[in-house]
C-alpha cells in the first residue's frame, strides 16, 4: 500500500482541441476521486513525459466541469497556451497518459437564498464558469456571465453556456459586446445581482473592488485567485496572498476569497 487515499491519479486524454480563439479544451478520463470536484476547485496537471524532470512542476488548472456522454464522467479543462507546460498540453492526443492531482482547494459556496447570480470573467478566467453557471441554472437560479477579452475571437461562444444563462461580453477593441473591460459592463448588473463570483487577473479584481466600494454594493463578492504555485497542496508556501487577516495560501485557503478580504 502506498498511501491511504492518494490525491494523484493517472488519467488519459479523451480529446484535446482548440475550443475557440487560442483557448483549448482537454477532456480526461480520470478515476473516481478526481471526478468529485466542485466549481472553484482545481487540479495540478503534470506537463512532462512520465520520466522527464523538465518542466518539473505541475500546472494549476481550474476544473471546468465534467462531461458525461455515456455515464462515464470526463474531467474538462479549458486552457490558454502561455508557456512550456501549456504548450506541452496542446501536443497530447487521445489515449495519451497524464498525471493529475486533485481535486484541490475550496469550492465556491453560494448562498442558498441567491436568486440572481453574476459571474465575471476576464480572459481564461472563464474556465470554471460555464459549469458553475449550469449547476446554478439547473437549480432555478437566474445567471448572467460577463466575459471580457481583448478581441471578439477570444470570447466564449454563447453555445458553450447553459441555454438559460445570459452572456454579456466586453472587448477592449470593441469588436464584440461592450467596448472596454468587464468593469464597464458590470455597473448595470450590480443592483440585480444577489451574489457575484469573479475570476481573472488581479487588475480586474482591483477595478471591481473600486466599483463595489463606490456603488455601496454589500452582497458577497467571491474571487477565484491565481498565484504562482509549485505544489498546489499547501506544503510549499509559494502561493501566498496578503489578506486583511494575514498571509494566506491560494491553493489551501483559496482559491476562493472574499473580495473585501483582499482588496
Amino acid at each position: 500500500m502506498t498511501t491511504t487515499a492518494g490525491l494523484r491519479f493517472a488519467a488519459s486524454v479523451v480529446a484535446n482541441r482548440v475550443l475557440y480563439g487560442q483557448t483549448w479544451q482537454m477532456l480526461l478520463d480520470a478515476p473516481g476521486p478526481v471526478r468529485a470536484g466542485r466549481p472553484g476547485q482545481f487540479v495540478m496537471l503534470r506537463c512532462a513525459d512520465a520520466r522527464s524532470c523538465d518542466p518539473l512542476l505541475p500546472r494549476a488548472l481550474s476544473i471546468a466541469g465534467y462531461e458525461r456522454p455515456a455515464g462515464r464522467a470526463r474531467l474538462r479543462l479549458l486552457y490558454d497556451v502561455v508557456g512550456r507546460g501549456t504548450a506541452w498540453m496542446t501536443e497530447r492526443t487521445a489515449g495519451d497518459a497524464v498525471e493529475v492531482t486533485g481535486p484541490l482547494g475550496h469550492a465556491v459556496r453560494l448562498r442558498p437564498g441567491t436568486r440572481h447570480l453574476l459571474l465575471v470573467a476576464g480572459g481564461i478566467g472563464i474556465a470554471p464558469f460555464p459549469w458553475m453557471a449550469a449547476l446554478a441554472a439547473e437549480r432555478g437560479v437566474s445567471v448572467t456571465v460577463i466575459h471580457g477579452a481583448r478581441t471578439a475571437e477570444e470570447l466564449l461562444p454563447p453555445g458553450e453556456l447553459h441555454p438559460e444563462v445570459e452572456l454579456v461580453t466586453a472587448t477592449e477593441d470593441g469588436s464584440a459586446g461592450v467596448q472596454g473591460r468587464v468593469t464597464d459592463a458590470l455597473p448595470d448588473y450590480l443592483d440585480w445581482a444577489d451574489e457575484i463570483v469573479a475570476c481573472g487577473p488581479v487588475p480586474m479584481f482591483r477595478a471591481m473592488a473600486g466599483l463595489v466600494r463606490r456603488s455601496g454594493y454589500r452582497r458577497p463578492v467571491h474571487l477565484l485567485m491565481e498565484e504562482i504555485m509549485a505544489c498546489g497542496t499547501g506544503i510549499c508556501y509559494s502561493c501566498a496572498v496578503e489578506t486583511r487577516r494575514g498571509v494566506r495560501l491560494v491553493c489551501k485557503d483559496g482559491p476562493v476569497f472574499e473580495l473585501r478580504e483582499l482588496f
Partner: protein
Amino acid sequence: MDAPDLSVELAPRHKQGLRLRNPVMVASGTFSNGLEFARHHDVQSLGAIVSKGTTLLPRRGNPQRRTTETPGGMLNSIGFQNIGVERLVRDICPIWATWDVPVVVNILGDTVAEYARLAARLDAVPGVAGFEVNISCPNLDVGGIEFGVDPAAAASATRAVREHTSLPVVVKLTPNVTEIALIARAVAEAGADALCVANTIMGTAIDIEQRRPVLNRPFGGLSGPAVRPIILRMVWQVCAAVDIPVVASGGIMTWQDAVEYLLAGATAVQVGTATFVDPDAPWKVRDGIAGYLERHGEPSVTAIIGTARTFRRD
C-alpha cells in the same frame, strides 16, 4: 525470505536515539507541518517528518514572487513564513504527540542566543522527537554572514542547541561553501548527533523583459533533480569526514536516487521538491527502496549504506 528491515538509527550516540521505521523523511519547508497531508496520506508510515523552519516569532515570509521553475529544478525565496514557536507548541505539537512517527523540528535563529531559546522552548514538549538545526541563514551576531559558511559560527549554533536540549540534534549544512567537510567536522565536534546534507544551493533567475530578478530577492535556493549530483558528491565527502549518521537532501525524485545516496553513505534520505511534483513521492521512494533490497537479497537498509564507497578502481 523475510521482508528487509528498513529501520535506521539517526542518533546512535544519543541515549534515547532517534529510530526511524524506514529511511525516508520529508524535508523541511516541503511538507508544511504535516497536517495538510495527514488529511489524505498515511503520514505516520514515513520514516520521520521534518517541520517547516520555525523561528521564535512568527514570520510573514517574503512578498511575491516566491518561487520560479528552472531547468530540472526550482528556486525559492519563501522567507521562512512560519507561525512561530509559541503557536507551534500550542496548536501543532499536541497533534504530533498523537502521531506514531518522529517529528523533527527545523529551527533557525538570527543569533546564537535565539537557537538556544528555541531549543529550550521545545525541549520537553510532547510531539517533538528532535531538532534539525538550519544554519543556512544570516547570523546577525556577525553582520549577516550565514552561520553555515563559517566553522566556528556553525559550531556555536550547534553547541547552543546541544546545551539546551536533551533531544537528538541533527544539523543541516549549507552547500554554499568551498569545503563542506570542514564545516561538517566542526559541527560534529560541537555535539551534533547527525548531519543533514544539504540545504538549497543559492542561485538566481533574471526576467529579461523586466530586467530584474524573477524572485522578490536577487537570490533564491535551488532544489530539485538539478542539484542531485552536487549534493551526492557532498554526501560522499561528509561521510568521509565524520563518523555520525548523514541524512541526504537534494533532488531525490525516485527510489533509485535515494539508493544512490544510501550507497554513497547516507543513513536516511529526505524527499522535498519531489512531493510538489507527485504527492505520493515519499511513499514510492520508500516502497522502491524495499523492493531494491529484496531484489538484491539484502536483509536491511543498513547492509547497503556506504557500500559504493569501497568500489574497486579498474
